[in-house]
């Protein structure tokens, strides 16, 4: 199972990195989201994987690591805020530069 999760993390990070390297802002937003999934899963996995051992006192015999979950929970919300910020930055750039290239008009001319 761990191998499977590692594979998933690897694929998410790789696809995220690839899309982050694209020239158009929408692709970068997609890439950052995928990268975010990968990183969140990675952080979550740091606590080790346990099945049916919820970190609720009294509900399980050998509860899983609650600390990484707490970390990832806030990371998910902040990740969303950052994605939103990026989207709006892209929109602003589109509004000012009339281009959805990450480098604005400079990038438009270069490509």
């Amino acid at each position: 199972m761990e191998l499977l999760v590692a594979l998933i993390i690897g694929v998410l990070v790789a696809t995220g990195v690839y899309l982050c390297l694209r020239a158009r802002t929408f692709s970068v937003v997609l890439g950052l989201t995928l990268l975010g999934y990968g990183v969140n899963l990675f952080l979550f996995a740091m606590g080790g994987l346990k099945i049916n051992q919820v970190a609720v006192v009294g509900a399980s015999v050998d509860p899983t690591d609650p600390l990484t979950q707490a970390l990832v929970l806030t990371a998910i919300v902040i990740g969303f805020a950052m994605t939103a910020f990026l989207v709006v930055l892209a929109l602003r750039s589109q509004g000012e530069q009339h281009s959805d290239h990450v480098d604005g008009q400079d990038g438009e001319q270069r490509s």
Partner: protein
Amino acid sequence: MMLPAIVLLPLLAAFLPMFTRHLGRRWCALLVALPVVAALGLLAQASLPIWEGGMQQWSMAWLPSLGLNLALRLDGLALLFCILILGIGLLVVVYAHYYLPAKDDGGRFYTLLLLFMFSMLGVVTSDNLLFLVFFWELTSLSSFLLISYKQYDSAARKGARMALTVTGMGGLALLAGVLLIGHVVGSFSLSTVLENGALVQQHALYPVILCLVLLGAFTKSAQFPFHFWLPHAMAAPTPVSAYLHSATMVKAGIFLLARFYPVLAGTDLWFYLVTAAGMATLLWGAIWALFQHDLKGLLAFSTISHLGLITLLFGLNSPLAAVAGVFHIINHATFKAGLFMAAGIIDQQTGTRDMRRINGLWKYMPYTAVLAMVASAAMAGVPLLNGFLSKEMFFTETLQSDQLGALSWLLPLGATLGGVFSVAYSARFIHDVFFNGEPVNLPKFPPREPPRYMKIPVEILVALCVAVGVFPAITVAGLLAVAATATLGGTLPEYHLAVWHGLNIPLLMSVIAMVGGIAVYACRRRLFAWYAGLPEIDAKQVFEGAIQRLVRAAAAVTRHFQNGSLQGYVAWVLAMVAAVLVWQLPELDRVTGERAMLPVDGVSVLCALMLIAAALLTTVLHRQRMMAIISLSVVGLIVSLIFVRFSAPDLALTQLSVEVVSVLLMMLAMYFLPARAKADSNSLRVGRDVVLAGLIGTGVAVAALLVMTTDTATISPFFLENSVPGGGGTNVVNVILVDFRGFDTFGEITVLGIAALGIYALLSDLKLASAKYDPFGRPWAHDAHPLVLVTLSRPLLPLALMIAVYIFLRGHNLPGGGFVAGLITSVALLLQYVASGVTWVHKRIPGDYHPLVALGVLLAGLTGVASWAFDSPFLTSTFTHVHWPLVGDFELASAMLFDTGVFLTVVGATLLILANLGKLSLLDDKKETT
């Protein structure tokens, strides 16, 4: 406490001119002279034990953990330098009072001079190597300010810059060398280092240390090939030259050689490096000094030559030679300071320093002429003057050295040649300036004797030259003995200071130097003609050119990397990560830890395959945006399933609700951003990015696998054990968020709020044209708010809100809490926006969400502050159980109030972001209709 007082008095005095400059130069000079005199008095008292062979030390712990102590030490060598620095400094203070132009109030000059004096005293008395380097750099900086004293003069500015660059780089090398010495010896204390010379010399790093320290010393002391800055530093006012280039600044490098003599000297490498540099400098300086037409230029090159001579003596690895070196430090300082001052007088009285115009001054200023001629004779090494004694010792030592084997005769030969030229340029200084016909076209005519008191410093120095020259045993012998003893680190060799040693080879060499020098000077016209034919090389231009080429090269490199392309920057950063992975991953001997893996089941494999397929699909179809968003949401949903599978219900709930909001966000982005059908990147770039992505993905996967299968000790048991007794909740994740790590969460919701406000600011007066058609060229549906959706969504709102309240309330004990509840509430409200439109919603609820964000952060913060009222630290929580009718036993925790803050912030931020984005299309539509 006497030592710090000696060092600090000049620093104190440096501030005085600030308050007295309006009173005129006389007051400034007087006020800065007094502390220097006081420091000399203290030095006299502090030196008492040193004459007995002792030492004075003072130290104060500063950062003991870093090996930094404020430690000073006064031994014979430091004493000698302190006397030179303070004594000649005092004379320069007096001299400068008469030298500076009438309109200069001297305030800035004296401040800088005293600052320099302070840094020099620090260099020579430091007992901590790092402290020494600090003062060393301070001398570079303050001398830079002194050399560029005439700020309006481009030559002064350039000369100062050159001096700073060369000596500053040397200072960096010295720092590196000192750090290595500290590493080898294990202490930065000079006293410890001096006792552990053998340790340093046997260490493998010895050659590196030696080269670095020598680089520092050679740049400072203008040794070949770093000598070129010194002649250009002559653009400084003459009192500065008299101080910096006779007794202090350039002697700092020599001081370093003497200071580290017991630690670094005695090896072959030392001999070859130091002797070669010394010999080259001695000859180079002596020969070019003869050809300088500038009075100060001649003195500058002769200084270079004499510094070379001292360096050469230290390089010979013989105790007697080191004694001679220390002796020559004293002698050179006295006669050279006197000569510079005399040159300044001549410059002041004639208005020029060009020796082709200054002739026959004997007639006009005979008194100054006598002083200058005596000092010059000392420089040439004429008997009965101090220069003769040390030069004689120098000749003897070159004869004694046999370290070059069959080539040992080279040393005395070079020494004699240096002697010949030093006699020649000294003769030129005397003959050309004071005799040799009449002055030619002087700017000021006729020159006169300077003010009476201006000559006093010169008289004192010249008197010292004569006194030491005639009666060495009763004048200088004591100081020389203690200084040389401290240099050698203990034992003083047998030597004899006397004017007459009988007829021997050194005397013969002196005679050859005298006769040869006068002969060389006699045929000067032919030599000058030859010199005039040489291509002119201006070190300043060469240096400036080199600096400019360096700057251009640096700019080119910077432009190459910093080309304005964000895409490029990201690629570079990721490439570095990939490079580290490629370098480090193969080093791993295994990719799994010792822990057994969980068994795999079919559903998990299926989900994993779906996720991988969806992620790849998103990547491949990223230009077909609708498809990309749909497959991306598949990825998000499976990620929340993963959280469910691996016992993280809180995460699953959060991920699920964030997913809804995210997809909505992407749809809005898609609506405004132009559609792209064809690829921007060429196949080369795609290939590069695939490789980068593959490498990084592999690296992260391997790291994750390794950690997941390794047993690690974590701090989590603490939270599991203390969740109920300490936080009053059974859902440990939520208790961590709102209680144990409440401060972190507080920070995080603040970030969330800031992001939302940032987005609000970015969106204000942004005008975007929304697409009129969908990517396939079809117009959007006319029915923007389908009836079915509207009808269904409205009753959903109260239901969703109720669930949110439920999730919120149970959050402390079961999966849920402020974050999740906030997201559910947001989704419920957003559904109304989607179904009925911004206008409809804002008619019913206020559309301003920033007060909500502020309220949330404020509530969370106030909950934290409230604990101060109970004398507890920020964000301490408390809880109690109350019995409510119908509901039963219910727990009330102050953390719940905090969680309410979280809830409000999440709702406010999410809606602020999306509602404002949604409004954009409204603005666009309005523009259409009007």
